[in-house]
């Protein structure tokens, strides 16, 4: 294939493998310069926002959980937080701890899946996880073992491993038996050891020498790593309440794309997710995770997107360690849920999904009917930053053959683990050169 000036260059692929969801990537090159990059993403939250209007406020956690098969707990937690804020309810400490434990289970599931089955093959010259398993069965088994521990937490606390059913506004339908929770301790100790091995494993990968100029946005939760609560903060000094952040975060339609692009009003695009969480919270890592990060050579901030796999592995240690501490301190909440009576109002909830900050905002009436819903997932917030990464990758890789360039683009997208959607389809890539 020739790529000379004037001859359109098009790379067509069935889809972007190892990324959840569907979408398309279109790159326009003019006289050897990338002039436009458009990552189009189908976003199910848009549909769910409309679906929620008219439903009862207690239905939001279970309905929104179905947006994503990978991170249903994140949707449940942000929905509960928003509704409880709207209704003026603060859950007790035991409920809060149990929520954090459940959320740790989801982090463990999601991070293990992405590290071992979706991202690691990029660094080891494997086409996919199957090839990786054929070449390094021990590694894949370790990853699946960690993921199964996440499943165990989800089953024990959430009622089942996929799409947990035990979460409700105000708390839980049923508090898990102490014996069942205590039984999680030993698997978690093994998972924590395996997570430490994971950090060591990925830290030996070879990473391109790339430094991204990122503006990080993540929650901060004083004294501990943010998961199920916190205040939105940024690497350039923002410190906002959830509602203020929701007001400042503007989602825009861009003419060339059907997807919404989030940015903070009057400011540059930003990045949320593991790299952002780490950059804003590395000072509150649990000691065992801080030691692992140091061993892996991470400083207090990591700006190389390819090293996101190392950061994600450190967060795997965080989640296992946090979960173990919560298991050992578990006291069943009694009652398992606070009573939440509807009242007219607006509530905003923010939590840290595995892929980044997830915001829900609801307006309800006196009967608890949802009047308006807004869901801002991490991927729409990261979209502009992912496009900026892609622009750089394509510009630096225009000399590459189509397959190699496509591979580089796929890696650039996978670095940020976008949850484009669940139950969805493909990403088509085309590069048009004029």
């Amino acid at each position, binding site marked *: 294939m020739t790529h000379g000036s004037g001859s359109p260059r098009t790379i067509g692929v069935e889809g972007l493998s190892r990324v959840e969801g569907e979408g398309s990537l279109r790159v326009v090159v003019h006289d050897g310069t990338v002039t436009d990059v458009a990552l189009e993403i189908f976003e199910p939250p848009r549909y769910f926002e409309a679906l929620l209007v008219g439903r009862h406020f207690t239905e939001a956690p279970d309905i929104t959980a179905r947006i994503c098969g990978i991170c249903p707990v994140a949707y449940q937690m942000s929905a509960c937080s928003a509704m409880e804020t709207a209704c003026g309810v603060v859950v007790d400490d035991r409920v809060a701890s149990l929520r954090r434990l459940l959320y740790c289970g989801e982090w463990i599931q999601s991070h293990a899946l992405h590290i071992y089955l979706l991202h690691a093959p990029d660094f080891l010259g494997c086409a996919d*996880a199957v090839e990786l398993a054929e070449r390094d069965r021990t590694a894949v088994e370790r990853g699946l073992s960690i993921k199964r521990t996440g499943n165990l937490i989800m089953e024990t606390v959430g009622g089942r491993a996929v799409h947990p059913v035990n979460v409700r506004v105000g708390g839980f339908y049923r508090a898990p038996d102490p014996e069942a929770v205590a039984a999680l301790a030993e698997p978690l100790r093994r998972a924590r050891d395996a997570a430490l091995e994971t950090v060591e494993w990925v830290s030996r990968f070879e990473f391109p020498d790339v430094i991204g100029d990122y503006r990080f946005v993540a929650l901060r939760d004083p004294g501990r790593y943010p998961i199920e609560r916190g205040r939105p903060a940024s690497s350039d000094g923002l410190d906002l309440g959830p509602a203020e952040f929701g007001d400042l975060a503007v989602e825009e339609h861009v003419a060339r794309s059907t997807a919404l692009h989030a940015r903070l009003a009057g400011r540059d695009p930003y990045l949320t997710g593991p790299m952002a969480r780490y950059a804003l919270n590395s000072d509150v890592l649990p000691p065992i995770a801080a030691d692992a990060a140091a061993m892996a050579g991470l400083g207090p901030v990591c700006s190389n997107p390819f090293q996101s796999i190392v950061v994600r592995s450190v967060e795997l240690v965080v989640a296992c360690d946090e979960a173990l501490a919560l298991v050992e301190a578990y006291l069943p909440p009694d009652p398992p849920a606070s009573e939440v009576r509807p009242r007219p109002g607006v509530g905003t909830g923010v939590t840290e999904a595995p892929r980044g900050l997830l915001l829900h905002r609801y307006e309800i009436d006196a009967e608890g009917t949802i009047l308006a819903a807004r869901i801002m997932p991490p991927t729409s917030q990261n979209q502009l930053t992912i496009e900026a990464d892609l622009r750089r990758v394509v510009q630096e890789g225009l000399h590459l053959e189509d397959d190699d360039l496509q591979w580089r683009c796929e890696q650039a997208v996978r670095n940020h683990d976008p949850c484009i959607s669940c139950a969805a389809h493909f990403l088509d890539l085309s590069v048009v050169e004029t």
Partner: protein
Amino acid sequence: MTGTTPRVVVAGLGSEYRRDDGVGPLIAARAVDEAGLGSVIGPLVDPLDLLGEWDEADLAVVVDAVRSGVAPGTLTLVELTGAHGSVAQAGPRGATSTHGIGLAGVLRLARAIDRAPARVVVVGIEGEDFGRGTGLSPAVEAAVPAAVCRVVDVIKEGRACA
């Protein structure tokens, strides 16, 4: 076989919020109930979640909506040879799956680590509408009772093969 009582697991793949994509979990749940099997795996939107759930089963029945060009509601049974035989090479995404990682890829992965079921039977229901929304299209809805009966038969055959 690994014992006198074969272990049979049934999974439903798909999302009820993508119309006909939700038919797999619906049929799987009803069939498991009618067969008295206990619990169903799913609804799963990612076949990767089968890992750990179907490990070393004697028979795994996976019910999923498919899109192959035949009449909506058409039932197709495909037996994928599991732990010991061959399975058609497929990428991480199976061509007939609406999900992120295809069933064939997951089976290959399970085989690579010796966690695959001995047998995998895929029960495919041809879908018509995979758009956003709930509810099945009429032709697919009409095919559900017969599909449930067929899955129940497969479960019973699997349990009888001690």
